[in-house]
Every structure is written in C-alpha cells, then in structure tokens.
C-alpha cells in the first residue's frame, strides 16, 4: 500500500472510532455547537464593542469565537486526550511494533482533527448566517481567514501532541487539558468579549499565548475587524514550538 492510501486508510479508522466514542463525539463535536446556541440565544441582539469605534451584534461575535473554540477543542483537546488514552492503554506501543511509519500514524490523527475542526467551523458559520445574519467572509478576507484556520489547526494539533509529554496517564488527561486551555479561553475573550477596560496583565497573557491571536484572526473574517498578519506569525510560532517539543519528548510507551 502506498503512503497516500495508507494515510487515508488511517484517517478512516480514526474517524470511525471517533464517532462511536460517546466521549469524543459529545465533548469534541457537540460541546462547541451547544455553547454557540446557548450564547447566541441568551445574549443575542445585544451590542458589543469589538474595536475602538466599532460595535457589532454579539451573536456575530459568538459565531466567530465559537468557530475558534470549536477548532481548539477539535485539535488540542481531542488530540491530547485521545493520544493519552491510546498511549496509556498500549495502543501506541502496539502500533510501534508494526511497520506503519510513525509520521503516517501521527498525520492520520492530525488530518482527522483538522477535518473535524473544519466541519465545525462550517456548521457554526451556517448557523450564524441562517439565524443571525452573520456575514460569511468572501474574497481576500476569506483567503486570510483560511490561512489563519490552517495555521491555527496546525498550532493546536501540535500543542495537543506536545501536552501529552507532561500528561502522566489517561486519567489525568482531561484535567490537565482543561486546566491548560479553559483559563486561556476566558483570558483570550473567547467566551466573554475583552473590552478596553480589561486589566493589563490579562491583555499581556492574551498577547503571549496563541488563543487570542487565533481568535482575532478568525474574527476578522466574520466580524469585519482588520486582519493582522502578526497574529498568524505568533500562532505559527506556537505551532513550531509544539512540534519541537513533541519531536523531542513524545513517547509511545505508557509512562509508569
């Protein structure tokens, strides 16, 4: 079997197992959509200031930030938790004893995560369009949006691989993953918009980590704020950092 079909074959099995596993199908797939509905229904038709002098309907804001949130769960949470379970139960060790190249195996998981992320973004955008008349990016903003989406999925996948290096076992995985991402989601304005009154330390944290930059890049397409290539650069840097950590410290055998 050639490399390409081996890879697609791998994606196929990851995909089967993903949808049949109630935990991943619910937490990874349904959660962001549920939040989208809750936030927009509760807070819809209020206005929010997204940049100095620019105010939009908050439902549009949530369409953008829930799309970002969906990508983060589909990539970061999904990969970190699934991989920790597979490592702990010995699936990874078993795989290591077969001739499938490690890169194909890892890529299979990555492609699947990106696929789930993109499907969620499409559903989110369609929902926003249908119920809240959120604008869908076209032309140059669409291109910028896609670049951000691609770089973002790579970054959150690679960080998902990287975080498994500090996860001691499968039981600890959800706790560590959530503890590392939830505060950041809040501090980065994913759930609650960050306004000009936000404390400086919060702004700094948001500036260092990739979540805020990614969200801003996603916002630009939907909300119509200006797209900043610096955001893409920061997220890309995190992607590379995550890759280097994984490359160096990723283990295939259970940590005992």
């Amino acid at each position: 079997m050639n490399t390409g079909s081996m890879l697609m074959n791998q994606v196929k099995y990851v995909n089967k197992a993903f949808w049949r596993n109630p935990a991943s199908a619910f937490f990874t797939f349904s959660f962001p959509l549920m939040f989208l509905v809750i936030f927009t229904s509760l807070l819809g038709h209020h206005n929010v200031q997204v940049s100095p002098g620019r105010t939009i309907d908050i439902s549009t804001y949530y369409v953008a930030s829930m799309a970002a949130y969906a990508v983060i769960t589909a990539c970061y949470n999904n990969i970190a938790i699934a991989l920790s379970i597979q490592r702990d139960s010995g699936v990874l060790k078993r795989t290591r004893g077969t001739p499938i190249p490690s890169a194909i195996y890892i890529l299979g998981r990555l492609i699947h995560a990106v696929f789930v992320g993109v499907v969620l973004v499409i559903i989110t955008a369609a929902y926003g369009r249908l119920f809240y008349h959120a604008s869908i990016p076209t032309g140059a903003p669409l291109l910028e949006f896609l670049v951000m989406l691609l770089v973002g999925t790579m970054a959150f996948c690679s960080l998902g691989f990287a975080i498994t290096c500090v996860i001691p076992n499968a039981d600890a995985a959800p706790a560590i993953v959530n503890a590392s991402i939830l505060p950041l989601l809040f501090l980065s304005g994913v759930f609650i918009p960050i306004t000009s009154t936000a404390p400086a330390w919060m702004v700094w944290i948001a500036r260092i980590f990739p979540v805020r930059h990614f969200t801003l890049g996603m916002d630009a397409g939907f909300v119509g704020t200006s797209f900043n290539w610096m955001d893409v650069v920061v997220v890309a840097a995190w992607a590379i950092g995550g890759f280097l950590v994984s490359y160096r410290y990723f283990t295939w055998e259970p940590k005992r």
Partner: protein
Amino acid sequence: MRGLKKSYGRFAALRGISLDIRHGEIFALLGPNGAGKTTFVEILEGYRHRDAGEVWVLGVDPDHQSMALKTRIGIVLQSSGMDRYLNVAETVEMYSSYYPQPRPVDEILELVGLETKRDERVLRLSGGQQRRLDVAIALAGNPELLFLDEPTTGFDPSARREVWEVIKNLRGLGKTVVLTTHFMDEAQYLADRLAIIANGSIVAEGDPATLAGRDRMVATVRFSLPEGIAPPALFELSAQTGATYELRTAALTRDLHELTAWALGAGVELADLRVDRPTLEDVYLELTAEVTSPASTAREP
C-alpha cells in the same frame, strides 16, 4: 543470541543470555515474575536496546534494522490495548493495512476462532476473546516469527485453554513462536523446547521431557504403616511424618521390590503407597529457588 545483557540503571535485568531458537519451533521462556522475560522479548522485538551481546532475529539485528524486521514478525505484548470502538474485523483489517503482504482477514479470524465475533465491538469481548484478537493482530502481516509475552497471565482456566488451542494451531502454519510464561503447565503443553530464566540468567534449557528428566533418577516413595509397626531397616528413610514414611531413591525398581517383599513377608499393608517422579514444576521450583534465594540478591555490587 550471544551474551545478551541489559541493565536498568544499576540493576542488571539480563546477565548474559545465550540461546538459539530454531526455525519452526514453539519455544517457551519460563520464569517467575521479574526474571527478565519481558526485557528479553522486547529486545528481540526492537522495543528496547541491549547493553551488550549479539542478537539476530531472522538474520537481522533488531537494533539496526527494526523496520525490515517489523514486516516479518508479529508481536503480542504482555499487555496492550486496542481501539475499543472498532469491531473485530475492522481491527484486524486496520492492522493488516500496515503490512506489505497481509494474510486474509477471514482466514485469521478463523484461525483464532473469532469468526462469529467479526462484527462485535472490541469493548464487548471477553478477556480470552481479546487475547485471541491480540494474536489475530499479530498474525495480520502473515509473520514468520511470533512473539507472545505471557499470553495467558490473568485469565481463568477456560480462557487459558482457548488461547492455548490457538497457539497450538500456529504450529500447523509453520510459524516460529517465542512465548514467555510463568506457568509450568503452559510451557509443558505448548513448547517444543524451553529455557528457564531466573534473575536474568538461563538456568536450564532443553525439551520439556528431558528437562523434567534431569532428576529422573531420583524418585520419592511414600507409604504409611499401621500403628506399632516399625519400618524395615532395609534402607535409610529420608523423612517421616507420623506414620507416613518417605524414601528418596535413585534405584526405584530395586528398592520398591525390597519394600513390597518385606511388607508381604511381614503381612503388613502399605497404606497410601505412592511413587512420585519430579515434575517439571519440581525442577522449575528447585532451579528458580536456587537463584532467587536471599543469598544471591538481584542487585549487582
């Protein structure tokens, strides 16, 4: 392999193992927990790297050509999971897809007796069925050589039997099988040849029958005498508990003849008369007790 050594820090897990495993045989490595069995097979499989010695597996050094080796071996680890949400057939198909010349999935399922479970999710299989699926996965690439690390540890007797029958069937396929176990009966039932490992060293090697026969010369005769009857002074008795006597002898036929002749002459009934040969278990316990006794601890100076 020759002079195989492996240490974890200062702890010597393998202390110079030399063994030849022949093509087409079922070879068992028998030893108590912590003897170094897993360390040994995982070095052959390419998971761990040796500190010293030479190893060839199918003519290949697993440290340097592990990829070439991986297509030709099948591995059942001591414990390793699989995706619980795939079904049996999907699981075997997935692993088959990793190999250049896989064996047809239906054939494999039949070999391990899971053909009726092909659409069952892995999470609904019993322990014995999951172990047979482990073997099925190991067979996916149609390997020449199969490693099984403690294939039946932790299973109830009927699950053990199921797995044993599967392993027995492999012989018919002409596969070489290397299995580790700490069950004497398992080694005796399955293996063409076996080696006993204790504390990182091979303490005995041979086929199950001759290994048991190492001490075949010494048999134990036990009998009881009615109250008030003293045992004959024909030979030195080796032990006495109440009215039960024990005689260890290298000349069983003669001694037994003399004993029964004496009993007939004296009109005494030898209650509970029994002759015991050392079993593989006795040999095993004796051999492993020597090296695991506190006098020779596992720690290197």
